[in-house]
């Protein structure tokens, strides 16, 4: 019994633990992003001030770099795993059925829901973060009027629809991903695994519904 001193990241378990940890951290980002966005419901000033506080902090570049690294790591690993898994079954089945007792819609569509979320992420950053720049002065401080950009962006019902499709995909993605990360990291015990799985489903719903509320809110505002 000898273990070769090969890098742990080449191991199938190392890779899934990287997916799990990066995924969980990204879940944390989703949650804070969503909570931050809720300031839009308070009003334009609250949203702009929140955005300004966030972007005017010099540490934001570090945070953004970290976030980008997390995304890249999660995506790179996912592509690697998908390719390896394809190679592990070179001849596919003539007929394949799932038992209905194991895999779920969410678990079997991870690459698709992930890809939809990724495409959306790029469109989202281009359309909003790098979207039209307006400025506004609040309490004597000049800042970006991201509220106006957002409202304008979601005047287009296609943008609203695209956003909802994407965040629902994301919700489905995390509803499997969240509990899956715990399993990968070794947390599975009859005492609590049911609760983690329930939490995972709830988190998926919160992500889908919570994020959908923003474009719908903006669309309704934009009509005025």
């Amino acid at each position, binding site marked *: 019994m000898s273990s*070769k*001193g090969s890098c742990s990241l080449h*191991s199938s*378990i190392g890779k899934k633990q990287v997916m799990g940890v990066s995924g969980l951290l990204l879940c944390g980002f989703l949650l804070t992003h969503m909570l931050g966005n809720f300031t839009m419901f308070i009003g334009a000033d609250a949203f702009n001030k929140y955005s300004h506080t966030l972007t005017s902090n010099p540490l934001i570049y570090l945070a953004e770099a970290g976030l980008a690294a997390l995304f890249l790591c999660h995506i790179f690993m996912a592509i690697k795993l998908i390719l390896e898994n394809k190679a592990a079954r070179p001849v596919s089945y003539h007929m394949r*059925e799932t038992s*209905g007792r*194991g895999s779920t819609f969410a678990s079997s569509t991870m690459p698709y829901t992930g890809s939809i979320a990724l495409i959306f992420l790029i469109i989202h950053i281009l359309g909003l973060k790098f979207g039209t720049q307006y400025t506004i002065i609040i309490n004597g401080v000049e800042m970006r009027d991201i509220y106006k950009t957002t409202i304008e962006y979601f005047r287009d019902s296609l943008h609203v629809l695209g956003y909802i499709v994407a965040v629902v995909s994301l919700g489905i993605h995390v509803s499997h991903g969240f509990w899956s990360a715990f*399993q990968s990291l070794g947390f599975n015990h009859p005492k609590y*695994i049911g609760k983690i799985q329930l939490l995972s489903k709830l988190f998926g719903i919160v992500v889908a519904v919570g994020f959908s509320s923003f474009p719908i809110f903006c669309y309704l505002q934009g009509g005025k």
Partner: protein
Amino acid sequence: MGGNNSDTMSLNLKVWRQKNNKDKGSMIDYKLDGVSPDMSFLEMMDTLNNKLIKEQGDSIAFDHDCREGICGMCSMMINGQAHGPEAETTTCQLHMRKFKDGDTIVVEPWRAKAFPVLKDLMVDRGAFDNIMAAGGFVNVNTGNPQDANSILIGQENAELAMDAAACIGCGACVASCKNASAMLFVSAKISQLALLPQGEVESLARTQAMVAKMDELGFGNCTNEAECEAQCPKGIKIENIARMNREWFKGALTSRK
């Protein structure tokens, strides 16, 4: 085997035929009458083979041995599920009463790069043996055995180890996994040993070695679908995979090799 003629079924079978490892292979249609609902799936295949031998002198190769659900040889993908649609049932324990007269049944071999098809429905599962040889054992010194009662084993661990030891190495987990991952099998073997004091000593190194071998042999990566657990004829739980993940992580952190 009871029943009269009116009880028997006629089936349309689509079976994978492949001459050898090099052959491309294809699905071939067969019609089989007079199948009794009391037959096991393997007896139905025997009946088909008898017919084929009489008619064409060539039979369908498939693995089988105990025919009582304990050896793990009877690997067949039946209608897209490993060992057919019944939960916790091997092909040899699956009965034809689960099918209806006129049904079309698709029978294929396990599909995985690490399980090459030898002929028809027979695959080479030697990869599992190679994983076992990499660490699925306990090293013991020769000499007198010590008194069995001198090693205490908690009841709970004894039960869990026994549950893991129920794995018959059939490969249904690999076959049913969309990624052709062998993690359920490997985790059952690792758990069975890690849960007992005799095996626990080498658990971290064992896990590293067996997982490395599993990866080397070309099995896929687990994505926590749990389809393996659902289609395992022995009800092995993915809780074992979580245990293996923990053991592996501990080993990756502490191994000095």
